[in-house]
């Protein structure tokens, strides 16, 4: 699914401009870093795509879905194709690793055998199979993020949105998580990752979109965290 953002603005009441005049197209299978300082609008942009936030102006389409005119049932079906990873993981503390991941498929009414198979596969993929019976509080930050990624991709979504997925992790663990996101991207999933992590962006060069004060100031293929002086 392609993401097309055209002339989008978001103003929070009373008059806080979070995004202004955003034009952005992300093609299927791309990996995009959203960079910028705190308050630059990265999270708002991601939340526009999940339709937790509605644009004040402009058009936003994801595949065939026009996000401004969406009924609640369409929204549910749309969100099944968009995985989300949060900086604070948002794992359910009373569920085990397996249950946290299986939960998504149960919500979708998948048969138990298929749920077991899929959850097993995805936990193997993120390296959490051996920790599958543990609860979130028994996991390290990196492990929690792996489970959160597993939960986000277990349904094989077309798009994966990651909001500061390495924000709470040390460099080594952040690299592990990054490798995981790249492998997910390599299997055809579009990945949009909001990050502050200069090291990661510079080490794994991908398309970089930079926001400042709600405006898009840079869109660079295989860019660096900071603007290249020769750019």
């Amino acid at each position, binding site marked *: 699914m392609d993401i097309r953002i055209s002339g989008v603005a978001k103003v929070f009441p009373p008059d806080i401009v979070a995004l202004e005049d955003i034009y952005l197209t992300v093609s299927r299978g791309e990996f995009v870093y959203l960079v910028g300082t705190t308050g630059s609008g990265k999270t708002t942009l991601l939340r526009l795509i999940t339709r937790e*936030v509605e644009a004040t102006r402009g058009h936003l389409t994801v595949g065939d879905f026009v996000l401004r005119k969406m009924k609640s049932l369409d929204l549910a079906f749309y*969100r099944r194709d968009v995985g989300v990873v949060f900086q604070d993981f948002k794992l359910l503390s009373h569920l085990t690793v397996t249950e946290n991941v299986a939960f998504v498929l149960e*919500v979708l009414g998948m048969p*138990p055998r298929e749920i077991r198979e899929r959850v097993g596969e995805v936990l193997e993929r993120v390296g959490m199979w051996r920790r599958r019976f543990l609860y979130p509080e028994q996991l390290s930050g990196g492990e929690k993020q792996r489970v959160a990624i597993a939960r986000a991709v277990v349904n094989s979504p077309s798009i994966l949105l990651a909001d500061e997925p390495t924000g709470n992790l040390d460099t080594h663990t952040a690299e592990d998580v990054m490798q995981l996101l790249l492998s997910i991207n390599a299997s055809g999933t579009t990945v949009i990752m909001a990050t502050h992590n200069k090291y990661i962006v510079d080490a794994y060069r991908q398309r970089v979109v930079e926001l400042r004060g709600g405006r898009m100031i840079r869109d660079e293929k295989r860019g660096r965290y900071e603007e290249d002086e020769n750019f």
Partner: protein
Amino acid sequence: MRIFKCVLRDTLRLLLRHWGVSLLTLLTAASVFFLVGASALLLVNLRSMVQKVEAGLVIQAYVKNVEDLQALQGSVAAIPGVSRVEKVHPEEALQRLGATLQGHTQALEILGENPLPPSFEIRLSRASFAPGVVRELLGYPQVEDVVYAGKLAERMAHISSFAGHFSLGALLIAVVASSLVLYNTIRISIYSRREEISVMLLVGATPTFVALPFVLQGMVLGILGSLGASLLLGGVYASFTDFIRETVPFLQIIEDPRLFLRLGLILMGGGITLGWISSWLAVGRYVRQAIRPI
């Protein structure tokens, strides 16, 4: 089917996770439904007593001549509230008086000629009709006098009306109280699961899928509360009727098991409906807000 199983499991989880709140809601709902059931039983018994008294309530209308009996019967029967009209000829009235006096029939012989006038014995469908019927009867020139237990009739009408209002009041209070309790319990459950709900909605759960376990929770609490109330009411009422039978035997309390079955079914129907409506209101509002973009 799989989704249904998932919803059922979630419902059970909700009930058990907050077992203290669930228990409190059950007790409150049961108390409220007990109050409703008790007031309904009170009303049914009062109505039954009123009906018995009303059935025995007779208006005696005396007319001038025997011919007036035939001439007026149709008009009297047509007065609103009149359920039965019986003509009483002077001879029949005398016979009745004789039967009443039993061993003292010589008193009748002293009278010589039959002094008793012809009359109508009028029965009413409800005691409250009595004053109106009496007014109508006195409007006929052929009617000489009307005799009836006016005060008793009015008092019975008042008691019946009061019982009706009391039951309606109790029902309204019960509906509001149980709705509020159920509504708040569901709100607490929602609050405790708000993070889970937000994740569910983000991964593509439909609003109905999210709401259903909460609605079922409300319905289960409603039906269990009313079931508990019905059983308790049955026990208390059985003891009460035994006590009344021994101490005030002339007071006739209804002891029909079908009445309890009907009352139990009505209470459970009410419980499940209230549970459904209150939980649907609580969760519907929350889910609508949760999916509405900022």
